[in-house]
């Protein structure tokens, strides 16, 4: 009974902090000036540049941007799963669990992090169909994961797993003893989501959860994630280039460009009143998320910059229709424009979704 009241309170709280309302929930993950670099034959390449954001307990945050904008890299960096050739060069990330214990993600030892990861913070991978060992039964994967974190009660692990399978709408008994090759792509993705929730993590990072799936399966997975969020208590960061997915699942959206977070705010603010020209460009490039009338799509002119040679000043200025002289020299800081909506742009007052501005820009850059 008391559990139910607790659930109800938690849900109320989540509902309250969604949308544009200023959240009062405690910060679960605080990311400060994080930069990530890759070693290349031409020197260190900055894939994430001084990213700063606060994620509050219970929120769903979407990291959006084009390929190569650094969104996945940031996600992997937070879980310390970068490839060998990459390093976190600056910044810190502090995770605070529900008991108030803080964890400095980049300063924990590997051993400490091995027990921390998956227990407090877990991940669902982009090609989730391939995250299961092809020669190992699903049951074994779940038991092994639990055992690796000191949970040796096999019956309890099985009960928990079957329960999660039901929550992700899988037939528990068919799947539990199956091998991955006996399941479809969508089923494997659900198994992978269930696997990431096995140890009740407080924060879940989903890297492109629907990208590798067909459109029908995508829909099903989105519904699964939505219903999980209603049933379980976890905070979520998901990386995607799919704006409609972000609109549907996220409470807050962070737009990334050339490794920088250029706009961060509540989903309604960012999608209805975008103040960064790049977010505007992204929104103009996809069919409208709401509304009946069809507006012609406009592509953002130019291409994403070479990360080895990021333009001076604001990295977006060569492609920006609103760029002025200052943009090529000074990189604008991320400033609060009210209602926990942050934007990094010198000319944000002038930014509009006016199609003509963009079409004109496209013509000039194309010429």
């Amino acid at each position, binding site marked *: 009974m008391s559990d139910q009241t607790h659930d109800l309170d938690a849900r109320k709280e989540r509902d309250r902090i969604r949308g544009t309302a200023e959240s009062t929930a405690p910060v679960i993950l605080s990311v400060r000036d994080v930069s990530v670099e890759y070693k290349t034959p031409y020197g260190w390449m900055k894939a994430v540049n001084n990213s700063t954001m606060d994620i509050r307990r219970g929120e769903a945050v979407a990291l959006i941007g084009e390929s190569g904008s650094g969104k996945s890299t940031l996600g992997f960096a937070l879980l310390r*799963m970068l490839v060998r050739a990459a390093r976190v060069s600056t910044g810190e990330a502090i995770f605070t669990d529900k008991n108030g214990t803080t964890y400095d993600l980049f300063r924990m030892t590997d051993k400490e992090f091995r027990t921390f*990861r*998956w227990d407090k913070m877990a991940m669902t*991978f982009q090609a989730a169909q391939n995250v299961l060992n092809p*020669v190992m039964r699903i049951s074994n994967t779940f038991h092994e994961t639990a055992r690796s974190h000191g949970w040796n009660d096999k019956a309890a692990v099985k009960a928990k797993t079957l329960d999660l399978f039901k929550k992700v709408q899988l037939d528990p008994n068919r799947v539990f003893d199956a091998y991955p090759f006996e399941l479809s792509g969508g089923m494997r993705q659900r198994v992978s989501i269930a696997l990431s929730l096995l140890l009740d993590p407080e924060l879940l990072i989903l890297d492109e959860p629907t990208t590798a799936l067909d459109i029908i399966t995508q829909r099903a997975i989105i519904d699964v994630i939505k219903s999980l969020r209603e049933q379980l208590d976890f905070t979520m960061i998901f990386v995607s280039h799919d704006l409609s997915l972000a609109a549907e699942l996220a409470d807050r959206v962070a737009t990334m460009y050339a490794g920088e977070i250029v706009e961060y705010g509540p989903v309604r603010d960012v999608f209805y009143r975008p103040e960064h020209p790049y977010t505007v460009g992204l929104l103009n490039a996809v069919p409208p998320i709401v509304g009946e009338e069809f507006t012609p799509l406009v592509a953002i002119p130019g291409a994403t910059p070479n990360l080895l040679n990021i333009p001076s000043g604001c990295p977006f200025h060569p492609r920006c229709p609103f760029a002025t002289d200052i943009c090529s020299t000074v990189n604008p800081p991320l400033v609060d424009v009210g209602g926990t909506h942050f934007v990094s742009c010198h000319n944000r007052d002038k930014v509009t979704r006016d199609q003509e501005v963009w079409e004109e820009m496209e013509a000039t850059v194309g010429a």
Partner: protein
Amino acid sequence: MELQASAEMIQQSAPDQEEEVRRSPVKVILGSFIFRRALRALLTIYLVSTFIFFLVRLLPGDPVQVFINKQMTQYGYSYDDAANQARSLFAIDVDRPLLLQYTDYLSNLLRGDLGTSMVLPGTSVVSIIQSRIWWTIFSVGTSLIIAFVLGSLIGMLMAYKRGSTFDGIASTIGSILNSIPNYLLALLFIIIFGVRLNWFNYTKMRGSVSSGQPVEFSWAFFTDALYHAILPISVYVVTSIGGWMLLMKSSTISTLEEDHVTAARARGVPEWRVLGFYVGRNAILPLFTQLTIAIGFVVGGSLLVEPIFQYQGIGMRLYESINQRDYPVLQGIFLVITISVVVALFVADLLYSRLDPRIRS
């Protein structure tokens, strides 16, 4: 609440499982993986033995005719005398129709009768093969296991330390070893280590066992057999290990990049388990296919190496039989080689299906 619900679901699905178990036992056996593979193995043996029969019979230069001619020129027999002699010696009735000869051959085969040698009249082919084949299986089998295990361990290490000095050196050595023909290395062994450096007494090491040492189950026999086999085994290992190293390296590198390896590490699976059950187990799968092919070349490899070391194995016997044109022995050896390869492949198939569940379905 939810736990109870899942318990209900378990109960509901139980009858389905029982139904599956109740399938007719005959169907289960006929449909089983092992039965299908065994059937395929038997069919292969039958086809090859048929092929060998017609190959020998239809070859230009009838072996019986060769024998008759030899008797006539060497010992001055008349044609009829020589032909009668041949008939009684080989129990071959050249006048019978080919089809009847074929059925005779098959029924003899089923009774384990492969005929008698032409060069050593009265000695059965089966006894000749029996006296030789175990030596080859021992020497080649041991070296195959050593090269496979050692090669894949080194290859895995190379993959983990890719780009390092160790990897560079091992890759170079591996590709050099992989390109040396084994008979050449056998000669080099004798010339350099035996004759020039005089590290071992290569004349004493000839043969498969010292004369006077009885074939028995004893430590003395085992060490003696090993002493005589050490040279051919080293040659086989050295010439084949490079291939396993390079194969395992590339296979491991591609497995290391698989998402499930990264994911396992992310879940906190201990590193030794990641290496063994995620990387190693998946990386070894393509090598297993190669291993089954390598088994097929076992006797082919021993054909040239065994005569060099005077190792009394089946390869050397094959070599002698070719020189003497001892057709029944040749035919018997080919048949035994085929059967052993088919059996080896069958065993490898079963092992492979244990390693990779995808094969079983």
